[in-house]
Every structure is written in structure tokens, then in C-alpha cells.
């Protein structure tokens, strides 16, 4: 046997390895797509595919270019947080090229009611109506401008907006007390409620005006004739420790239990 000659067995095994290796490289090339692994264990090109989807909602800023008047009105109204397309539907195509068809004018009641129909689960303070009792015969937009919805008249009482509290207090021990006994509300609160918030009591002494034992309660406290009322008394210094009264008693429906 000449030295240097590779034995046959080795050649055969080598061939097998070569074939397996080559197949593996081929398979890898065939099955691992281009751009795989560039950014991580995925096809980098897929990011581009995801990013190239067509846009349907243009965003309200896009409308300003041509409908600046509506945008300005809407942005300073109660509906300022709404996007144009929340009501008019997707309008990217319209905004891009003034497509043949204008976006629809959603004049039906259902649109307004999806947001304003009374539902207990909605956050307190959100303006809601009971449709059967709120001008059921007329279209909403005949009284409210959808781009600047203001109640066309000033509500007469606090109950117009604070219905829940009014209902609760009316059947409570504090029923004889008007809201103003405890809250000083400027008239502006009726028109722009959030910009002019009324005052709330902030100290224990306030409730003590009526409830503290030993303190001479004025016969007339902010318009309420207290002489006719049988007001339960407590030792203000000790009762309830240092907590505020309304940490234990709900002020709009106090209970002594």
C-alpha cells in the first residue's frame, strides 16, 4: 500500500458526509427564506409587509386642510375629543383625492345613542339620556349641532346633570337639604361645568355645623330652617377619630349604622 493513498472506506464515508452536508445546505437555502435572521428569528421582510397595509382612517388632522371651519368648531366643543371619522367613518380615500363619493352624513339617532344612551356601566358624569324621555320624536341634530353640541337651554336644576345624586339624596336623611347648603355653585357651572367647578366641603367642622353636640346650631343655616328638624348629634371631637365624616358616611345618603 502506497503511503498517502486514502483508504476506500474513508472515501466512502467522506462521500456520504459530503452528500448529507450538501443536502443540508440545499434544504436550508430552499426552506429558510431570504432575510430570515437579519433582525432576529424571523423574516425581516415581513416587517415591511405589515407596514405596507393600506390606511383607511386618515386622522382628524388630515381633514383640517379642507374643512378647517368644521375642525375648529369641533375642537373647541364638547366633542373635541372625538375624531371626525368616529362619526363619518373611514375617509382616508376621500381626504387623499376627493373621491367621487363624500363620506356619509350620519344623521340617524343610533350614532348619538351608541355613546349617549343611558347605561349603568358608563362612567359617572358622562352625559347620558334616556331616549324615550328625551324628545323621542325629533332627530338629535335638529337641536344639537353634532360639531358643537350644547344643550340648547340651560338646565334648571342641579338634577339636570347630577341625576343620580339627586335621586339618591331625595330619599335619604339629607332630603331636606338643598345642594347649595353644602356646595356653592356659580351660575357659570351650569354652562361650562368643568371650567367652573363648585366647592365641596373639605373639613369635619362643616358637618359639625349641624351635628356637633353642644354647638349652638343657627336656626337658619344657608337657607334651611333647622328648628323644625330633629338633627342627631355626635361628639365631634371623638366621633370617628380624625377621619373625615364622609370617609364613613356617604354625604348624599348618610346612614347611622
Amino acid at each position, binding site marked *: 500500500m502506497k503511503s498517502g493513498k486514502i483508504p476506500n472506506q474513508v472515501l466512502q464515508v467522506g462521500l456520504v458526509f459530503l452528500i448529507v452536508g450538501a443536502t443540508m445546505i440545499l434544504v436550508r437555502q430552499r426552506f429558510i427564506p431570504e432575510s430570515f435572521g437579519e433582525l432576529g428569528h424571523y423574516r425581516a421582510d415581513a416587517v415591511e409587509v405589515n407596514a405596507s397595509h*393600506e390606511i383607511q382612517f386618515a386622522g382628524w388632522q388630515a381633514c383640517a386642510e379642507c374643512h378647517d371651519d368644521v375642525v375648529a368648531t369641533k375642537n373647541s366643543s364638547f366633542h373635541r375629543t372625538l375624531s371626525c371619522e368616529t362619526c363619518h367613518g373611514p375617509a382616508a380615500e376621500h381626504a387623499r383625492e376627493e373621491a367621487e363619493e363624500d363620506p356619509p352624513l350620519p344623521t340617524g339617532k343610533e350614532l348619538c345613542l351608541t355613546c349617549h344612551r343611558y347605561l349603568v356601566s358608563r362612567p359617572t358624569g358622562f352625559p347620558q339620556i334616556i331616549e324615550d324621555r328625551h324628545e323621542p320624536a325629533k332627530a338629535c341634530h335638529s337641536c344639537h349641532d353634532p360639531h358643537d353640541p350644547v344643550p340648547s337651554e340651560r338646565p334648571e336644576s342641579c338634577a339636570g346633570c347630577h341625576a343620580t345624586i339627586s335621586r339618591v339624596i331625595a330619599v335619604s336623611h339629607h332630603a331636606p337639604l338643598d345642594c347649595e347648603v353644602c356646595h356653592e355653585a356659580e351660575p357659570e357651572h351650569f354652562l361650562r361645568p368643568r371650567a367652573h367647578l363648585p366647592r365641596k366641603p373639605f373639613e369635619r367642622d362643616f358637618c359639625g355645623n349641624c351635628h356637633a353636640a353642644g354647638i349652638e346650631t343657627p336656626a337658619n343655616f344657608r337657607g334651611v330652617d333647622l328648628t323644625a328638624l330633629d338633627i342627631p348629634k355626635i361628639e365631634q371631637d371623638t366621633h370617628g377619630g380624625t377621619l373625615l365624616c364622609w370617609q364613613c358616611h356617604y354625604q348624599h345618603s348618610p346612614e347611622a349604622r
Partner: protein
Amino acid sequence: MPKNYERREFLADLVKFPCATLLLGVSGPIKALASAGDEYQASEHHYAMGVQIEKCIGCGKCVEACKIENDVPMEPYYFRTWIERYIIYADGEVSVDSPNGGIDGFPPIESEKAILRTFFVPKLCNHCENPPCVQVCPVGATFKTQDGVILVDDDYCIGCRYCIQACPYGARFLDPRTHTAGKCTFCYHRITDGLLPACVEICPTQARIFGELDKLSTPLNRMMRQSNIQVLKAHMNTEPKVFYSDLDGEVR
């Protein structure tokens, strides 16, 4: 030149220099290509969403907008985002409903029982930092991008449903038309174009806040620093990136 520039150092530099120039030479044009114009740079962003429970009115406009924007099948089984209504009764019973994902709003509550608390919870993919769905994908067809968004590679997905099983939030479905996995992308095509996700754009009460996680002066970070923040199923260690403020303990 340093004082003791020795031969060893000189030789090392001799090797380093051409390597560096070579690298620069190659990467230069690539970078230039990528940053041509104001091209979007994924690595400069890190997205998340905030949801303010106390602002959601359950109108369902986000669900509708999402389906339109992303061409999601309209049938009531496929949602990238949906709204759940939680009702906690005085006797302790908790009921959750989501009629057609809330796309048409919610009907009044039928039950006569006394209600303790009730509220709406918008849900969507949580774009986890540790996404279980990405871990189980056998072909690398779902992945986390550099800006932290979990996407699906439609051309490469084999429709095996592993990711749907793995998602603890039920945020994925199998698209009946393509037989590939569907899910929220944070509207990747919109955010990379400087727009907000459709659900955020359309939300009438700003209950949804979208933005950068790593920048301080953003609506998202302001909200996160000033509210009581929770995430869903925190115990699963998925590190979700949808942050809820004032979430009730009953929400799963």
C-alpha cells in the same frame, strides 16, 4: 501618536485598520440607504398602550374601526380588539359579557339584582416583552420587532394554531380566509407612518393612549406615572405592554 507605540501595538493596528475600513465601507451605504429621507427607524421606538378604564363608555367604535382598518372578518368571532362589560353584583357574582365584541355598543343590563360595580374593559394583544406566542411558533412566523410590536408573517405562517393556544389573553384568532394567525399589530402600518392606531384615533373619550414607553414627556408616560397602573395576568411573567389604570381586581 502615543509615547510608547510598540511593535506589538503597531501590528495589531495594522490588522484592525483595514478591517475597520472594510466594515465602514460596507455598512456605510446600507445605513445611508436606510436613512434616506425621514425613513422610519424601528430601533428608535418602543411602543405601548395605556387604557383608562374610568373613561371607557363602551361605545364600541374602536372595535369597528379596528376591523375596517385592518380588514378583519366582520363575523362575530374575529377580533383584534374588543370590549368586555364587567358587572359585579351585590351578592358577589361577577358577570362578563361582550356581545359581538361590543361593536354595536351594549344593551341595558337585564338582571334585576342589585349591582355593586360595573364598567367596561377594552382588550387587545398586550404586545408582551416575553411573548409566549413567539416562543411556541415552530417556524418563526410571529415575532417581536425592534420597536416592541408583535407581528405575524402571513406568508410564512403555517396555521398550526400553537400561538392561539399559547396566548394567555385570547388575543389571537385564525383568519378563515388565509388560514393564518391574526392579531393586533398596533396598526403597524399607521404608527410607522406617524399616525395613531385606528382604535386610539377613533376613541371619543381618550380612554386609549398610545405612545413611546421610553420617553418621559408623553401622554402615555404622564398617565402611567400619575395613575394606579395594572397589567393583565401579571403573574404569568409575560410583561405585557398594555397598561390599565384603575383596573378592578375582578378583571381577568
